[in-house]
């Protein structure tokens, strides 16, 4: 070790400020660069997931308006069947959307919105 002890190492022969400023700024800038790249990768991946959730929301709404139309034309008894099958056919993974298509339109959109928020 060229220096006798720690404080002469820190002092750097009187030029401590400049040496540590340059090394510090180098480490800091590299850290900022690394963190920026790392977090933008994570946001990109969560962006993909949000996009998926959004597609699911749009599909659920489309399903809903489809069931609403059919029930209007097919009459009361058909409605009961319709909403039951719609409930079953929804994919298991997206439990929230399955629940949605069974319930009436008004509560569904409010629930839809909270679902959008939680993801």
């Amino acid at each position: 070790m060229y220096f006798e002890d720690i404080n002469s190492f820190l002092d750097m022969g009187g030029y401590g400020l400049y040496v540590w400023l340059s090394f510090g700024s180098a480490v800091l800038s590299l850290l900022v660069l690394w963190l920026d790249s790392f977090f933008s990768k994570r946001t990109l991946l969560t962006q993909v997931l949000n996009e998926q959730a959004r597609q699911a929301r749009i599909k659920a709404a489309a399903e809903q308006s489809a069931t609403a139309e059919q029930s209007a034309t097919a009459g009361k008894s058909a409605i009961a069947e319709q909403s039951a099958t719609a409930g079953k056919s929804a994919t298991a993974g997206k439990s929230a959307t399955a629940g949605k298509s069974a319930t009436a339109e008004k509560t569904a959109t409010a629930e839809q919105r909270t679902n959008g928020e939680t993801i």
Partner: protein
Amino acid sequence: MWKWLHPYAKTERTYHLCQRLLPWFSVLGLAVILFATVWGLAYAPTDYQQSEAYRIIYVHVPTAVLSKSLYSAMAVAAFIGLVWQVKTSFMAMMALAPIGATVTFISLITGAAWGKPMWGTWWEWDARLTSQLILMFLFIGVISLYKSFEDKQQAGKAAGVMAIVGVINLPIIHYSVQWWNTLHQGATILKLGKPSMPPEMLWPLLLSILGWALVCGAVFLLRMQNEILHREIKRPWVVALANKTSPLSKGK
């Protein structure tokens, strides 16, 4: 000869190639850079003329060298992209640009910090520092040009042209600044370049250059992945990847 690299598979394959190389580059890079810096800071002998201040060389010279090579690497990527219409090379170019800008920024700060004990002022219009400053502006120019386009394809081409224009101008800027400097100031007191150094000073310097190169390589791989993901965000393999890598949110 390149035809077998189907353009669609290439981006996915490049992504996984970066994924495999990333740990190697980052671990190795960190190890080498730490080793070299500690060696240069603590164990290398003092310099008879500037005593300990010369140790800033172990940061300033690597970053100065790297900034120029990163810019030329960016220009090479731009050249490949423009001539052979290779999509991934534009992504590589845009992955390199922020790293180059950061490294040039570090070389400017370390140059200024080294200039204070030598010339008494924080900023001295020395030939090498001035050309580093101009290089910084070239980097920022390419990045802001890229950011001002909506369509990433178009942005890549425009930034590519700007990178090539920049790299052609680099030597011209370098020599005109040298000439400008000697015109006004005569020989500067200390040539900031690599003075002929005894081997025990030179080895940590070469190692720190290698360390910096590896670390920049690691960040490049990471940013390259970001660029690929950003461009191919709608592609099924990206969606599969997103679901695979972040299981926690999928369960919700």
